[in-house]
């Protein structure tokens, strides 16, 4: 049995086609995902915009303008106590972006939007803009309203999605904040003009403070959600099912009714159960190794997280590959079909089921979600969906319950596949060869 295990192992590891589909294919596809989605991710990120702030008389008269700029740039105040460097959440590096989340004193002011250069006049600000040292100018008018003026190059860059990704998002956010400041400032002035004593009440200032209608990002899940991660998980699901090829080959070459090699092995004085068990263990080991290589690439090269639960991710690979070996055993045991036909069937199954686990883009992802909501049983019996869920549950849920539940579903599937396979394989002699 040991020699059968070793031979199966060698045979699997030298099977170039299987190695391609199990290692090269997921690595190539995840590299492609990384190229496509990596840019998308950056496009949605906010980066500080370099601006020149004109600190002239108008600016001095604009109440609160300095405070606003200080907050947006992450510097504390003019006295030099500014904390330009950011302090990230200490719990993990995924919950916050060190470039974006800024803390001043005890107050987390959120995302850093500005990289400020203070100047005394509009002329100096224009010079900086012309030299390309800044992207825009912030200045106040006589009424205390502040305005952001962008250079033509900056506008062109922001409109061109392929350059300086994320600039357009940063500018939109900045525009929104400045507009909010101007409206609040105007409201305060009008209110104080009508009722000068209002400034003495806490209620007034509380009302002004609560007037902001911005959106605050909070994290409810184990990790910061990464929409793109699901594609990589779905890719793992597909690669996992492609590993069926190992067991299909193993079963086919052990069955007298399926191959000449099977005849030779069946005539040998080693029980078929032992031969199949050795082949199964070798197939399982090879599948695990291949999937772990793919997972390591996705995790450490593409930077797709698994919720900081790498050991559980390894367990996920063990469970997923056990399921796929069981599935392969069942497909391999189907009588009267050649190895080639069964391999084609397994590829078709892997590709087909991957559609419903969301591998093929936004439409497929929506379809996957729809099935999970409307027909959870269908999602539950889709092996690729369940393998995807394994990694998904590690990433998103605080509790390990969803992960364990998915493991149980996959093991139950394995039991069904193995039972069906054994029923087909149990015959010791055949009517036909």
């Amino acid at each position, binding site marked *: 049995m040991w*020699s*059968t295990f070793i*031979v199966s192992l*060698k*045979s*699997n590891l*030298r*099977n170039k086609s299987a190695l391609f589909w199990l290692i090269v294919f997921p690595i190539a596809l995840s590299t492609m995902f990384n190229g496509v989605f990596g840019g998308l991710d950056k496009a949605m990120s906010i980066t500080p915009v370099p601006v020149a702030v004109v600190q002239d008389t108008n600016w001095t008269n604009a109440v609160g303008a300095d405070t606003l700029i200080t907050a947006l740039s992450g510097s504390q105040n003019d006295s030099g106590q500014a904390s330009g460097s950011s302090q990230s959440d200490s719990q993990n590096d995924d919950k916050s972006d060190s470039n974006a989340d800024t803390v001043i004193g005890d107050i987390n002011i959120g995302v850093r939007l500005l990289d400020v250069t203070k100047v005394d006049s509009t002329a100096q600000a224009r010079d900086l803009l012309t030299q390309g040292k800044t992207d825009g100018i912030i200045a106040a008018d006589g009424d205390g309203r502040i305005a952001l003026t962008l250079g033509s190059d900056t506008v062109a860059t922001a409109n061109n999605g392929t350059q300086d990704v994320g600039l357009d998002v940063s500018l939109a956010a900045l525009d929104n904040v400045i507009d909010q400041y101007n409206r609040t400032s105007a409201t305060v002035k009008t209110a104080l003009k009508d009722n000068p004593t209002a400034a003495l009440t806490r209620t007034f200032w509380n009302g002004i403070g609560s007037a902001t209608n911005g959106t605050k990002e909070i994290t409810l899940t184990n990790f910061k959600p990464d929409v793109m991660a699901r594609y990589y998980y779905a890719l793992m699901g597909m690669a996992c099912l492609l590993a069926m090829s190992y067991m299909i080959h193993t079963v086919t*070459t052990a069955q*007298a009714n399926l*191959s*000449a*090699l099977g*005849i*030779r*092995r*069946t*005539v*040998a*004085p*080693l*029980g078929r159960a032992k031969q199949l068990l050795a082949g199964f263990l070798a197939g399982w080991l090879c599948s695990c190794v291949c999937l772990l290589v793919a997972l390591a690439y996705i995790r450490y090269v593409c930077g797709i997280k698994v919720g900081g639960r790498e050991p559980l991710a390894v367990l996920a690979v063990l469970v997923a590959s056990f399921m796929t070996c069981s599935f392969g055993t069942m497909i391999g045991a189907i009588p009267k079909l050649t190895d080639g036909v069964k391999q084609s069937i397994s590829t078709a199954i892997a590709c087909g089921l991957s559609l419903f686990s969301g591998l093929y883009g936004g439409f497929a992802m929506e379809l996957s979600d729809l099935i999970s909501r409307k027909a959870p049983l269908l999602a539950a019996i889709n092996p690729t969906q369940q393998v995807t869920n394994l990694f998904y549950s590690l990433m998103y849920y605080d509790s390990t319950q969803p992960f364990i539940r998915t493991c149980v579903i996959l093991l139950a599937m394995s039991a069904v596949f193995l039972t069906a396979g054994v029923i087909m394989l149990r015959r*010791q*002699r*055949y*009517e*036909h*060869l």
Partner: protein
Amino acid sequence: MTDNNQTPAVHVSQLVKRYGDMVALDYFDLDVNQGEIFGLLGPNGSGKTTAINCILALLTYDAGTIRVFGQPMTPTSYALKRRIGIVPQNVAVFNELTVTENIDYFCSLYVPKKADRAPLVEEAIDFAGLQDFRKFRPGKLSGGLLRRLNIACGIAHKPDLIFFDEPTVAVDPQSRNAILEGIQKLNQAGATVIYTSHYMEEVEQICDRILIMDHGRHLALGTADELKSMIDTGERITIETFDLTDDALTAVRALPFVIEATYDGHELAVRCRRGDHNLVDLIGVLRGAGANIGHLTSRPPSLNDVFLELTGKALRD
């Protein structure tokens, strides 16, 4: 094992195997003595491979008994299986393994200890003439080398009974000769061989006894000479002659020992019944008709003649 040399290596009695309405083996009998090379001949679909698969307990059968070395053969007769080697018709090796690894693996199924196995593997490599191809994978081997590897994988564990199912299909004459000599060496070393082939000259060359079967039935059994004596066909005479008249041809055909006579303008071919003076009588008729005789050959009946006479000339699948 408790068998002695009198116990047949294989005993098959009244074996019946049906595929639906089709009868593949029709009360088939077979006895193969220990130490002999036994030829199993038959056209395609005659039941040879079915019989072998039943003997090897690969196929179920409807009736009859099968014993190997006196023991009933079942799928779990591992002690018996240890004494059996098989060289299937299709090359049955792992394409991902080298020549040495393939032989070692199949030998390991019979001889688990590596130390015991190593010399057997070397011997099998030498036997098959694969010394220069140890590290080659099957995909890199020629057809003849592949066949030799197929044989080495089947005989490395030194079985007492070896089944060769058409082992020389698609190999060159040199490889074929090497294979046949190898089979004879195995036999001389004590192995019983059951050999199936379509090549009559091979069977005639190496087999001690031959069984001809068709439609799942036993048609004839004996040595090559015994089989030849069983048929009506005697010698085949071919005579080079360019001036044979129709009357002369009619006279030839009228001879009592002539089964068939054909003339294509330059050669007269005559198939004769058994007789002591066929050639003399035929030449006498031709001389009487004034025909000039050039080159002349007389060939005694071959196993092929026996085969065709017993199984007919109708094409098979």
